[in-house]
């Protein structure tokens, strides 16, 4: 259910500015131009918050507020005064009637959003609700770390990704950055002086714009107390030093809820391509397994009937990869897909050592594999995988 914010102001300008301020949040703005309209709209719509001006024709804000607070059905609606009437005595007098907050014009839109965000759980509206962010999309990752070498290590490690890694030294710089730009993820060193990591964590969580931003704690593996403290306060994840960059990348992707399937699956000239990276960890296997069935079904649904499984980057074969391959081949058979493997000499040699994999045969390149699949009939003398789906 979307939150409703009622703005009661005789100035159309203010109502437009309010709409503008909240346009990137998941809420509806309802308008009224005086106290009478405001009361009627409040009764009809039961808004979650009312932004109320004081000086208005027909019925002013003070009268509307008084009537609102004396109506049992409406008195619970939180009211924020948004008015140019800001003298100390006026504010005290109005506050006594019962307002949640008081914003004096001129006002910054961010201040208004922040104050409303303290009352309702404002959620940023995604640019396109149906589009899932993918691993190929840009993202901004803020690293708050006073050791430049660590920032550099993260920047180097993730340079293949389309992400921008922005390093800052202090929490002050981090706060400035967050006020200017909304990061997609924040990594904070837990060893910043004076427990600054936790102060910054609280700031990010209380800021409407960043309260849902994933926050990672970064600490040496043996600093168990800091890790425990970070987990208790609600850090999204902990990254330990020395850093395992592929693991960090996977954690970031998961925390940002990115669709990582493009890393492993693609379609090239009517061939469905499954690709495993050089280092295929358990985390990678889990990701591939998650996407495998839906992606293959999608490919079949789109009219594809041939699959190339590309393992040529893989340095060694282990049980988790073998299991994944069996799962993939089984699925190909179930969907009546022809498939071929691409590998390297090392892999082919390792396969010979296992009973279950010794029949696997690999092509040296994707083109060769494609070519073999393109042949009108595949003889049973071809490699087991290629023939398996026929």
């Amino acid at each position, binding site marked *: 259910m979307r939150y409703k914010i009622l703005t009661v102001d005789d100035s*159309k*300008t203010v109502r437009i500015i309010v709409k503008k301020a909240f346009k990137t949040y998941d809420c509806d703005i309802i308008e009224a131009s005086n106290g009478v309209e405001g009361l009627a709209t409040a009764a009809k719509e039961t808004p979650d918050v009312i932004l109320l001006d004081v*000086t208005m024709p027909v019925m002013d804000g003070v009268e509307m507020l008084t009537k609102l607070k004396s109506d049992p059905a409406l008195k619970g609606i939180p009211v924020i005064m948004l*008015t140019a009437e*800001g*003298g100390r*005595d006026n504010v005290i007098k109005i506050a006594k009637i019962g307002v949640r907050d008081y914003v004096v*014009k*001129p006002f910054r839109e961010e201040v208004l959003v922040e104050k409303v965000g303290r009352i309702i759980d404002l959620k940023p509206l995604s640019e396109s609700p149906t589009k899932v962010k993918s691993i190929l999309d840009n993202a901004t990752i803020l690293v708050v770390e006073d050791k430049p070498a660590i920032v550099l290590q993260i920047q180097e490690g993730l340079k293949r990704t389309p992400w921008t890694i922005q390093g800052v030294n202090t929490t002050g710089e981090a706060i400035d950055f967050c006020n200017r730009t909304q990061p997609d993820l924040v990594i904070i060193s837990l060893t910043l002086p004076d427990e600054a990591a936790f102060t910054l964590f609280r700031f990010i969580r209380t800021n409407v714009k960043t309260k849902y931003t994933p926050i990672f704690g970064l600490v040496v593996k043996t600093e168990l107390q800091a890790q425990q403290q970070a987990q208790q306060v609600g850090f999204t994840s902990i990254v330990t030093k020395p850093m395992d960059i592929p693991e960090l990348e996977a954690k970031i992707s998961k925390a940002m809820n990115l669709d990582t399937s493009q890393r492993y699956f693609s379609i090239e000239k009517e061939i469905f391509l499954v690709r495993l990276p050089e280092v295929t960890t358990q985390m990678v296997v889990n990701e591939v397994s998650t996407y495998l069935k839906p992606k293959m079904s999608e490919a079949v649904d789109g009219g594809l009937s041939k699959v190339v499984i590309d393992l040529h980057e893989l340095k060694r074969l282990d049980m988790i990869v073998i299991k994944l391959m069996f799962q993939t081949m089984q699925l190909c058979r179930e969907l009546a897909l022809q498939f071929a493997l691409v590998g390297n000499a090392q892999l082919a040699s390792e396969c010979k050592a296992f009973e279950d994999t010794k029949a696997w045969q690999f092509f040296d390149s994707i083109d060769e594999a494609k070519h073999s699949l393109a042949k009108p009939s595949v003889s049973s003398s071809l490699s087991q995988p290629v023939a398996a789906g026929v």
Partner: protein
Amino acid sequence: MPTTEKISDLVFRETMTRAVQDVVKTMLNQNAAFHSEIGATENSDKAIEISGQHVVGTVGFIGDINGLIYLYLASEFASLTAAQLLGMTKRELEEAGDEVVNDAIGELTNMTVGAFKNQLCDRGFACKLTIPSILRGSNFSIQPISSATRRVYRFDIGQHRIVADLLMKIEE
């Protein structure tokens, strides 16, 4: 109750300058530089210095202290200001018409007068704002009645000029 005679010209100028600068900075993200003033005892016949078509916003304050402030902007600058305030393009603003510009300048005046009079309230002069109104035209002048003092303050915002005309009723 304190009397306004105790407020010096310097305080009026500083109060008005703070109000204009605060509103311009907060709402338009621009700087307003104080340019010059015409004091209460000076001849203010040609004080406005904005020629051609202009838009004038007015808001009064009533209570322990009574007066009103006119905010003068050249018509073109008023449109630019409204566009910035509302986050609209020039074309969108043209389509929306003068009414939207009038409302925006009215609100800008309301905020400026609010910021001005709130400072006076905190000095012990309790007063409330009136509803804004707008004048549009060229070759017109607003003359105070004899029982009012007039102070004019000019500000520069980039290449543009904004003039605040403060009229206050003399206490009996």
